């Protein structure tokens, strides 16, 4: 029955494996997880788009080229203040200003808080260590996330008033680290 009716296509496999990487990244914050390789000439951000975007949801991306490619998934392009998914390939000063505008949900609907997908450098040995604690973490975990200004962590701390807040994924060369709003992150 299975062979004739339910094919586990490559597209299906990539979408599922990308989702599982995100699910485990969010379940065990601060741990680096591998994203699946894609045969579709997709970068990490497009892989996120494949796993999460469709006409039922919305996104924002300040990078015109990436925004155009993400549009292929059919999601609605919205302002940073109203988008469900905010793609930030680089977290420079301009992008940091955008972070301060993302939606944080309401007490009635905290799940409306945005999800950020942020480009970073997970190989930067000189990046400051981020000490993480909270759900999904047994004690503490330390991770170095380069190309993310220290101001981001302070801004995040100020913006998250649990359960209100945003959730973030940091991506770099096929790897991802999750930071749900429950994670307390301190710069060591």
């Amino acid at each position: 029955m299975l062979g004739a009716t339910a094919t586990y296509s490559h597209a299906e496999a990539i979408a599922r494996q990308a989702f599982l990487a995100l699910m485990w990244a969010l379940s065990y914050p601060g741990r680096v997880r591998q994203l699946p390789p894609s045969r579709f000439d997709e970068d990490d951000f497009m892989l996120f788009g494949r796993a999460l975007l469709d006409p039922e949801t919305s996104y924002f991306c300040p990078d015109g080229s990436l925004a155009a490619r993400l549009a292929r998934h059919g999601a609605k392009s919205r302002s940073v203040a109203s988008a469900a998914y905010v793609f930030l390939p680089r977290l420079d000063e301009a992008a940091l200003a955008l972070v301060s505008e993302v939606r944080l949900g309401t007490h009635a609907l905290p799940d409306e808080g945005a999800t950020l997908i942020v480009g970073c450098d997970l190989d930067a040995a000189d990046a400051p260590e981020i000490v993480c604690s909270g759900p999904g973490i047994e004690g503490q975990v330390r991770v170095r996330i380069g190309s993310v200004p220290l101001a981001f962590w302070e801004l995040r701390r100020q913006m998250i008033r649990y359960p209100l807040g945003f959730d973030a994924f940091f991506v770099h060369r096929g790897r991802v680290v999750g930071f749900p709003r429950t994670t307390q992150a301190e710069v060591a």
Partner: protein
Amino acid sequence: MSTVAELASSNRGYSYAFLDEFAKRELRRRILKAIAIPGYQVPYASRELPIARGWGTGGLQVTLALVGPDDVVKVIDQGADDSVNAANLRRFIARMAGADTTTDASRATLIQSRHRIPEERLQEHQTLVLQVPDPEPLRSVEHDISKARLMHAEADYGLLWLSLYEQLVRYRRVTLGASYPCLVHHRYVMSPSPIPRWDVPKLHQSAHLTLLSAGREKRLYAVPPYTDVRPLEFADVPFRVEDQRGWMCYRTGLQNKFMNELPQTGGGAIYEISDTGFVEKVLRKVPDREAAGSTPAQAAVGATYYDDEGRFYIDGYLR
């Protein structure tokens, strides 16, 4: 003139894992938010399935959104792998996803369960999907669901505490059995689904991920790994699990595991461990049994949440 057969679209078969891409993607987005906000009930568009609502459609949808051919799936119903409901769900999942199946909790990557958590401790990167008939822990004190949502938003759980206090005044004990309300990550009160009180502590600081889903109510929520889950209790009236001291499983001779009570003709009762997969493993290990020598490389029985003396594995959690 066209016939109905000609007008109808050709049979293209099912989507992988039955649900279409949009349904799976929506469920996956919701699961991520549920993990990010432990215990908060995330609404989702519960789809129709070839089983009736109330028979595990919530759990099944979550399982179908996660499952792949590399998964090993275990389905249990009140602890039993061989009940009609569990057997049918397991067969459906295996057919739709090409996944392997097992009765061994330690071997499973994905466990869908109705009303029990296995006796063996689950490990990191295992996912437990609990079927939930009623996700709303405030239902007994607030029938208006809109008001209940507002109470969750304001963390207003006074009425729930009052109902527990009233039970103490009236019956000298908390009379709640299954679905004992728990505070998750110090913020949301959730229903752990109708698992017995025996299983509630297993959710606290667990290594595995727990997803709970109610298909009829269109709500799902999560307990991420290593998250605080505390049953509501008063400082001077601690939470208690079911008292089954002295009960011995007639099949394994073990005590201090959650038991089914089997009434006997003429009065009296015998007891058996509710977790049939665990019993299976224990029986395989008994050296005198003929099967033991001929069964190749059986998995060892793993550490359990409660030891043989009935002590929970996290010191101090049960007072």
